[in-house]
């Protein structure tokens, strides 16, 4: 309950700051509202509570990371938002509607740890997939040209390549292009760079921030890298293990403009140390 107060308070401070010129936050609605959500796996006899009593509000345009030890339920929480898992208790709202409705209207896109591409389809056809299934109508929506989406992730010229011809980092870019092509309001990312080497991860971190700035999307980002969480986010949600709850939230008061140099900056280190404390306590 203490937690709830913190979230509410931080929400209020942010809206209060609205006059200071941050356009994105000035019209901030609540993008995602998670209200007392619990998820239990398995039958009644061997039930495992993956997350318990989680409440969180993410404002429109915000970049929020979820971190925690492996098995703390951070991915479960993200998948509950994405309507892949139904909460056992509580409810999730995306712009006031149900996750199922948000899914159908392409309000959010999801990026997985693996690039999850169709290996038999060319890059461009992989990017085009969200147009072609689930009753999506590219003419009705304000969808992006798939070529433009590829340009956004700097993969022009690779339209006709097969995924197996690309490196792991390039494949993950393709999957990001596929997520962006529907111009989602919310981007849910489940350890998207976790399988990549550090140099590629750094580059993609910077590019993700650029895309986030340009688009004004709301991003919820699951990671187990404290550095990555601090570098990218405005707020970092620390999840505790057993019970799997929100253990604390850290506001990242780093400048809006962030580049690679910041990765080695002491300010970033302070935040990381702070997170490490919170994780230990949780």
């Amino acid at each position, binding site marked *: 309950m203490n937690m709830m107060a913190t979230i509410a308070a931080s929400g209020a401070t942010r809206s209060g700051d609205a006059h200071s010129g941050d356009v994105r936050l000035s019209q901030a609605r609540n993008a995602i509202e998670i209200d007392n959500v619990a998820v239990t796996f398995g039958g009644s006899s061997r039930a495992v509570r993956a997350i318990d009593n989680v409440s969180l509000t993410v404002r429109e345009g915000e970049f929020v990371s979820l971190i925690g030890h492996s098995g703390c339920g951070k991915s479960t929480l993200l998948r509950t938002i*994405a309507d892949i898992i139904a909460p056992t208790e509580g409810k999730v709202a995306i712009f006031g509607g149900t996750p199922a409705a948000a899914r159908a209207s392409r309000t959010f896109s999801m990026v997985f740890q693996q690039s999850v591409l169709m290996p038999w389809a060319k890059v461009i056809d992989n990017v085009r997939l969200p147009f072609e299934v689930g009753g999506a109508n590219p003419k009705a929506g304000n969808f992006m040209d798939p070529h433009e989406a590829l340009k956004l992730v700097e993969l022009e010229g690779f339209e006709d390549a*097969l995924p197996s011809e690309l490196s792991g980092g390039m494949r993950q870019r393709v999957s990001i292009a596929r997520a962006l092509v529907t111009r989602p309001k919310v981007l849910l990312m489940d350890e998207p760079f976790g399988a990549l080497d550090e140099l590629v991860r750094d580059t993609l971190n910077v590019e993700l921030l650029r895309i986030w700035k340009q688009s004004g999307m709301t991003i919820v980002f699951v990671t187990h890298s404290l550095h990555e969480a601090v570098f990218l986010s405005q707020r970092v949600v620390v999840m505790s293990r057993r019970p799997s709850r929100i253990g604390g939230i850290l506001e990242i008061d780093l400048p809006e403009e962030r580049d690679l140099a910041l990765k080695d900056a002491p300010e970033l280190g302070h935040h990381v140390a702070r997170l490490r404390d919170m994780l230990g306590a949780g």
Partner: protein
Amino acid sequence: MSVDRSIETAAPLPRIWSILPGPEVMRALGMAVLGLSLTLVLWQLVVTLFGVPSYLVPAPTDVAGALSRDLPLLVEAAVPTITEAFLGFLLGNTVALLVAVSFVYNKVIEEMFYPVAILVKTIPIVAIAPVLKIILGNGIEPKIVIAALICFFPTLVNSVRGFRAVNPQLLELMHVLSASKTEVFLRIRIYSALPYIFSALKISVTMCVLGAIVGEWIGANQGIGYLLLQSMFDFNAPRLFATILTASVIAITGFAIVSMLEKWVIRWDPGAAM
């Protein structure tokens, strides 16, 4: 970018080249031919040295003689057998794929009819053949059905497995995209199943020749099966061996065609993790 170039060099190869065997395959082929030649030489030596009469075991030269002498006869016999095997192949695999699709769409159908399919599989094909002859008569039909029956099971089992062997994350992605069952099937399951289906087709393309021959044994006046029996009754061992060789060539050709088709259809790396 360096990756750019690697793709440019990989792409311009004309499509037809991709289905022809590469140098490793050519070497394997050469070794196989060498082994086969040595076996034939050994066979020839044993038969000649021990003076085995050619009506018992013909020497390779006797078989070669029969091959050239009876070539028109062998070709004539091959035509109906190939027709029966091919039509049986089409029928058996088409039905197997349709049943597999129905299994994947509906669990209840699978629970009810998978045991039936296994039951059919356990009945020896030579035991069913006379029944089919009574039902379908002496024409081409019972042979096609026997060939089809023999193809049916491996394709059913493999394609059901293939339709289910989908990357679970791709299914989650399709769920997030609100894709329907049919969309998942047409865009994901079919492609995931193709490698499995092709390995089944490679088994059944050789099996359907066997099925057609068994069918001809039960009652026919033409075809490879018929010629085998005739040669046996005539104690014409060289022609018997030449006929066996013809059957083998038909099966190998079928296998080669399906393998080339597989390479042409499956251009991606089915084992690669994405």
